[in-house]
């Protein structure tokens, strides 16, 4: 079920130059344009090449552990007393999050292009771990850029990357978070483009990344769609996913975009709250601009300087968002909500205690929205939550926020 080739019912976006309506495109220094052209060409070949697709599928199955289960969340459903709740268990992917679906795809492309060195940016560390993992497996040199602030917040993942043989470079410039790690990775790429492939971890960046990462991640939505039809005999009423850059959400949404009966809801991080200056609710509160190579919604000041994002979750702490989300929002095809740090922390504990599954702080944002939404729906309706990652990496940060361990 995990062919990369999109059927005729799927949206034909983006256009040949990577535009999703007015969004997306390619805003990069000229030095990088030929590398992006080559990547586009190689990806176009790969996505219709049966051998490439077969190898991608084989690694997803044998190495990542796909298809991931669809779990009926009986306790959450009973407690909220509304729609039936299903969880798409990306936390059970090898390395503990959906990120590896994309890194498997891109490492196979890097091998086709003959580039021996891989760079990546990471926020929460999940994409860095997923990149370090495939570099170890496929024999690539790996360098991961990570904001110095995030290095502190996600120490466990830093050590995991190092164990996997990657070099982690803390980034001290700017706000020392994901945005600055992405700047540094792009600067590295401009410098070392001849022998280096940049594995971007989300549906952001210059064309072809937003479309390519979406396609590699859309295995999530394709499996979910088939599993829901098999289990319930029909499509879900709501699909719910957290949105930072938006890769798990885009991978989940994409196969449902032409199913007009399915509500697609993305959940952003409201940090201290929507009414404060400290949040990461880019789609809810930002306006269009250009960052990291594409035109999309951004948090920025009146003069176009990028604003600092804030979230308890390092993976959502980003002032931009994938351009296809911007397009889905403006077309009214997807809705975007925002929940704050406290709601996410509450939801993390709630899901852990009720279902015995510890979600990542990123994922917990989707559950905070679920708590508001499910009771407004009827028991004959269904919601699927993309359980994008497990929360082991967040235990320390959460313990700190909750005032330590209770023994």
């Amino acid at each position: 079920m995990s062919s990369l080739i999109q059927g005729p019912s799927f949206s034909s976006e983006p256009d040949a130059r990577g535009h999703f309506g007015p969004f997306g495109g390619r805003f990069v220094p000229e030095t990088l344009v030929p590398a992006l052209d080559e990547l586009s060409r190689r990806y176009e070949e790969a996505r219709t090449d049966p051998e490439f697709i077969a190898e991608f599928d084989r690694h997803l199955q044998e190495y990542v552990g796909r298809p991931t289960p669809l779990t009926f969340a009986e306790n959450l459903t009973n407690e909220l007393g509304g729609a039936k709740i299903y969880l798409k268990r990306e936390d059970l992917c090898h390395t503990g999050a959906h990120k590896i679906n994309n890194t498997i795809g891109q490492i196979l492309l890097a091998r086709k292009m003959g580039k021996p060195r891989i760079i990546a940016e990471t926020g929460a560390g999940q994409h860095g771990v997923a990149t370090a993992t495939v570099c170890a497996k496929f024999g690539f040199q790996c360098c991961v850029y990570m904001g110095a602030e995030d290095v502190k917040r996600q120490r466990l993942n830093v050590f995991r990357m190092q164990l996997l043989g990657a070099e982690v470079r803390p980034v001290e410039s700017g706000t020392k978070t994901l945005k600055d790690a992405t700047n540094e990775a792009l600067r590295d790429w401009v410098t070392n483009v001849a022998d280096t492939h940049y594995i971007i971890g989300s549906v952001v960046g210059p064309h072809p990344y937003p479309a390519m990462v979406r396609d590699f991640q859309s295995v999530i939505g394709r499996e979910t769609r088939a599993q829901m039809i098999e289990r319930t005999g029909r499509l879900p009423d709501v699909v719910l996913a957290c949105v930072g850059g938006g890769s798990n959400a885009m991978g989940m949404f994409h196969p449902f975009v032409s199913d007009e009966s399915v509500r697609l809801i993305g959940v952003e991080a409201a940090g201290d709250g929507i009414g404060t200056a400290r949040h990461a609710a880019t789609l809810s509160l930002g306006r269009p601009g250009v960052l990291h190579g594409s035109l999309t919604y951004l948090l920025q000041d009146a003069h176009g300087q990028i604003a600092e994002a804030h979230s308890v979750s390092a993976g959502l702490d980003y002032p931009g968002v994938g351009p296809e989300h911007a397009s889905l929002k403006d077309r009214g095809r997807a809705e975007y909500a925002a929940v704050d740090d406290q709601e996410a922390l509450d939801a993390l504990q709630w899901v852990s205690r009720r279902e015995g599954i510890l979600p990542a702080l990123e994922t917990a944002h989707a559950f905070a929205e679920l708590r508001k939404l499910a009771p407004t729906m009827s028991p004959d309706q269904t919601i699927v939550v993309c359980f994008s990652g497990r929360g082991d990496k967040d235990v320390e940060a959460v313990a700190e926020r909750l005032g330590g361990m209770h023994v």
Partner: protein
Amino acid sequence: MSRLQACFEALKSRNEAALVVFVTAGDPFPGETWKVLKTIADAGADVIELGIPFSDPLADGPVIQASSMRALEAGVTPPSVIDDVRIAREAGVTVPIVLMGSWNPVMQFGMTEFANAAAAAGADATILTDLSPDEADEWKAASNVAGLDTIFLLAPTSTQVRMDKVKPFAGGFIYCVSRTGITGMHDNATIGVSELVSTIRTNIPGVPVCVGFGISQPDHVRAVSAVADGAVVGSRIVQQLHETRDLDVLAETVATLKAATKR
């Protein structure tokens, strides 16, 4: 004839290359950028690139990133940079002034408004390092109406396809990036430049080619001047100005670099 065209023709008749000097607006003297520009022009620079600081530049190395951050903290904005140009013109700076920066601040200003305001203040051209011709149709049109030249970059990675793409968009001069990478000071800045410049000249005849990224020493300028129409010095000037805050030192450096452009 545009100010840039006239500048390169005059240089040609004197058998000199252009010395192009980059500084960030507002760093280190917010509100007195005109003094810096006047010093640079009076010391012999042929073209000035005035940097519009951006919070997240992709093409800049550590020196110019840090300079941009200082300028932003000092309150520099795109409107204040345009004011700097106007004040410099009033103070008698007559060399071409090129505004250099990233696309987002221009986009947020409003591209037509920005082109008109920059031209009215006395700017001659723009270099927007993350705006390649692929996304520049509207910007090119707005610049043409305003009378601003659009300067685009070509790099060692640029293929025939890219040169063909840049050709109809190129105005003022071509900014030839000396090496793959970001701005900054490098020892081997001029290796392979000769070949790249001649390829660009063959593909895009009639447009001057200036070489930048990594050019910091008179020897670099001399080597570039032998093969190209101009040499761009940025990081070294920015760093020295930040460290010394001394316009006399700036003038001396510019004069030394300018001497190296004489063939």
